[in-house]
C-alpha cells in the first residue's frame, strides 16, 4: 500500500529526515517510536503534505501512485488521513459543515454524489457514538474551545467519517487521560479493516497496549534504526531508548 524509499526532508534548511525506508501493507498497524526530536512528527507531516517541509530526496508510493506529487487535499481524497498532534481550531466553521465539506469533496473526487445535510446527520450519529461524543458538538466551531481530549476524539471522529485507507496518528495519545485514551483507541480499533492500514506515531508505549501494532520501528536522527514486532515496544518501555541509540552508534546525550 505505502512504500517509502530513502526519504529525506528538511524544514527551514535543516535536514530532519535522513533517509527513511518503510513498507506498509494493507491490514497492518505500524508503530513509529522514538525520542523527542527524532523526526517522527516530521515524517507524519511530510506524508500529509505540509507545505513547511521540503522533500529533498527519495520517493513515497501510495497504492502505486507518487504521493509526493499530490497536493495535500488530493492525498486526502486518495485516502490518506493525518490525525494531528495539535488539532487546529477554526472558529466560525461548525464541525458539521467542516465534516460534510470534507466528506463530500472526497466523494466528489471518487465520482460519487454529494450527500445532503440531513442524510449526512444520519450517517454521523453512529460515528459519534464510536467516540462517545454528543451530537451538540457538531454545531460547535471546529476544535474551538475543545479540551485536549475532545480535540483528539474529534480527530478520530473525522477519521471515522472519512474512512481513510491509510491513517497516520501523530502522537494521538499525548495529553490524554486514561478514559480518553481508551475511547480513542477503541475508535481506531473499530475502524481497522483488512483493506486499510494505520501508522501510529508515539513516544510512549501505553497507546500500544490498546492499539496493538504488527510492526514497531524506532526512529532516531531522522532514520529508522531498529524494527521489530510488538515486543520491541515493551522492551523500549522497560529499558528506554538509550540502548537502541547506542546499538545504532548514536550519541544518546542522556548521560552527557
Amino acid at each position, binding site marked *: 500500500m505505502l512504500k517509502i524509499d530513502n526519504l529525506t526532508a528538511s524544514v527551514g534548511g535543516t535536514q530532519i529526515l535522513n533517509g527513511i525506508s518503510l513498507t506498509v501493507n494493507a491490514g497492518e498497524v505500524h508503530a513509529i517510536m522514538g525520542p523527542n526530536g527524532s523526526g517522527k512528527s516530521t515524517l507524519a507531516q511530510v506524508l*500529509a*503534505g*505540509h*507545505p513547511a517541509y521540503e522533500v529533498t530526496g527519495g520517493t513515497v508510493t501510495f497504492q502505486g501512485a507518487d504521493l509526493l506529487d499530490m*497536493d*495535500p*487535499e488530493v*492525498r*486526502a*481524497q486518495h485516502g490518506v*488521513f*493525518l490525525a*494531528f498532534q495539535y*488539532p*487546529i*481550531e*477554526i*472558529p*466560525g*466553521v461548525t464541525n458539521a*459543515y*467542516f465534516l460534510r*465539506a*470534507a466528506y463530500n*469533496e*472526497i466523494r466528489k*473526487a471518487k465520482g460519487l454524489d454529494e450527500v445532503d445535510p440531513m442524510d449526512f446527520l444520519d450517517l454521523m450519529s453512529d460515528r459519534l457514538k464510536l467516540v462517545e461524543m454528543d451530537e451538540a458538538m457538531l454545531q460547535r*466551531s471546529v476544535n474551538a474551545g475543545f479540551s485536549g481530549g475532545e480535540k483528539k476524539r474529534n480527530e478520530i471522529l*473525522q477519521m471515522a467519517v*472519512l474512512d481513510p485507507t491509510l491513517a497516520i496518528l501523530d502522537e494521538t495519545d499525548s495529553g490524554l487521560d486514561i478514559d480518553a485514551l481508551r475511547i480513542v483507541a477503541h475508535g481506531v480499533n473499530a475502524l481497522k479493516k483488512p483493506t486499510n492500514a494505520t501508522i501510529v506515531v508515539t513516544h510512549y508505549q501505553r497507546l500500544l497496549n490498546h492499539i496493538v501494532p504488527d510492526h514497531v520501528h524506532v526512529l532516531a536522527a531522522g532514520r529508522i534504526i531498529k524494527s521489530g514486532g510488538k515486543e520491541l515496544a515493551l522492551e523500549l518501555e522497560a529499558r528506554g531508548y538509550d540502548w537502541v541509540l547506542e546499538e545504532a552508534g548514536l550519541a544518546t546525550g542522556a548521560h552527557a
Partner: protein
Amino acid sequence: MSTTLAPDLAPQADVARQLGPDWLLPVREAALAEFSRIGWPTTRNEDWHYTNPSAIAEGKFVLAAPDERATGERRTPTGTAAHGVTVAHLAPYTFGQDWPLMVFVNGRFAPMLSRLGALQAGVRVTPLAEAMREDRDFLEARLGTVARFDEHAFTALNTAFMTEGAVIHVAKNVEVAEPLHLVFIADEQAEGTISHPRVIIAAEPNAKVTVIESWGAVGTPRHVSNVVTEVDVASGATVTHLKMQRESAAAFHVGTVQVNQAKDSHFVQFTFQSGAQLMRSNIYTHLNGPGCGSTLNGLVLADGTQHLDTQTRIEHVAPRCYSRELYKGVLDGEGHGVFNGKVYVHPEAQQTDGKQENHTILLSDRAQIDTKPQLEIFADDVKCTHGATVGRLDQAAEFYMKSRGISAEHARRLLVYAFAADVLETIENEVVRTGLEALVLERFAGVVV
C-alpha cells in the same frame, strides 16, 4: 489654490432653490451657504486623509431626475417611475420576504414596486416627497435637526438638494413586528447622475423598529448616491438599522447616518459594504441621555480597485452610556479599506463603557488597510478599549482543511467566511444574517491567494 466648489455647482444651486416646497427654501439656502463655506473635502482634511472624493467633485454629475418644475427640462431621460426595473431585479435584495417595502429607482420613489399596504397601527412610512407636501409640521420639526449640515459637506449638499427618501415614524410603545425595508436601485439611466436621498427615522419613547436599507444596481451605472439617514431614538426606544451597500462597481456611495439618542435608548447598526468603486460611510451617534448605547458593527468586502472607507464618531455626552464597535474587513486585489473610529467622551459622561475593534484580513499583497482608532476622553471614570489587527488567512487552518480533502479554494472561502462569522452573528434578524453569510461565501468564490 481652491477646490471649494466644483464649477458646475453654481447652476445646480439654482436648481436647488427651485426644488420646493417653499417652507424648505431657507433650509436649502442655509445648506448651500454652508457647502460654499466648507467646500468639497480634500485629502488635506484630516477626516479625508485616506479618501479622495475629487472624482465626485470633478465628475460633473447632474442631479438625478430633477423635478420638471425645477428646470423646465429633464436632464436625464427618466421614463416611467420604475425606469424598467422590475420585481425580478429586486429579488437579490429582498431576502425572499414580503416585509413592508419602499423602492427607489435612480433616486426616485417607485410606488409600483413598493408595498406599504398593511402597516401595523402606530407606524407611518411615507415617501419624503409626499411628506414635504403634506406633513410640513412633522418634517419641519425633524428635518436636519439630527443631521447637521454645518460640519459635513456631503450632508450640506444632501440638505440643499434632497427631494426623495423615506420618513419613518413609530409611535410611543409600539414594537414594529416586521422590518421596514428601503431598497435603492440604480440602473443604466442613473449614469452620470447624483442623487441625494434622505431617510428620517423617528422612534418615540419605548418604540422598537428595524429599518433595512439595501442599495443595489441593475448593470454597472457610474453614478453618485449621497444619502443622509437621520435617526432620532427617544427614551427607552430601540432602533436597529441594517444597511447593505451593494451598488455598482462603477458607483460612488457617500452614506451618512446621524443618530441622536435619549435616555435608556438603543441604536443597533450593521453595515455590509461590498459595492461601489468608492464608498464613504459616516456614522455619527450622539449618546445624549443617561444609560443609552450604540452598537455599531460592520463588514467590508473589497476587491478590484475598490476603496471603502468607514468613519464612526461616537459622542458620549451623558453618563452611564455604552458603545460597542466591531468592524471587519476582507480585502482582495487592490482593494483599499479605511477605518477611522472616533470616540469622544465628554466631561459629564462618567461611567462610559466603550469598546472598539477593527480587524482586517488581506487576501492579496496589493490590498491595503488604513485603520485609526481615535479616543478622546475628558471624563475620569471611564472604561474604553480599542484594538485593531491586520492579518492574512490562517495557513495552519488552511492546511488542516486541505488535509481533510477540502480543496484549496474551498478552504480559503471557508476561512473568509469564518473570519466574518462572528460579526455576522451579531445580526439578530436571522433572514438577513443567513442572506449575508451566503453573500460572503459567494463573494470570494474565485479567490486565489
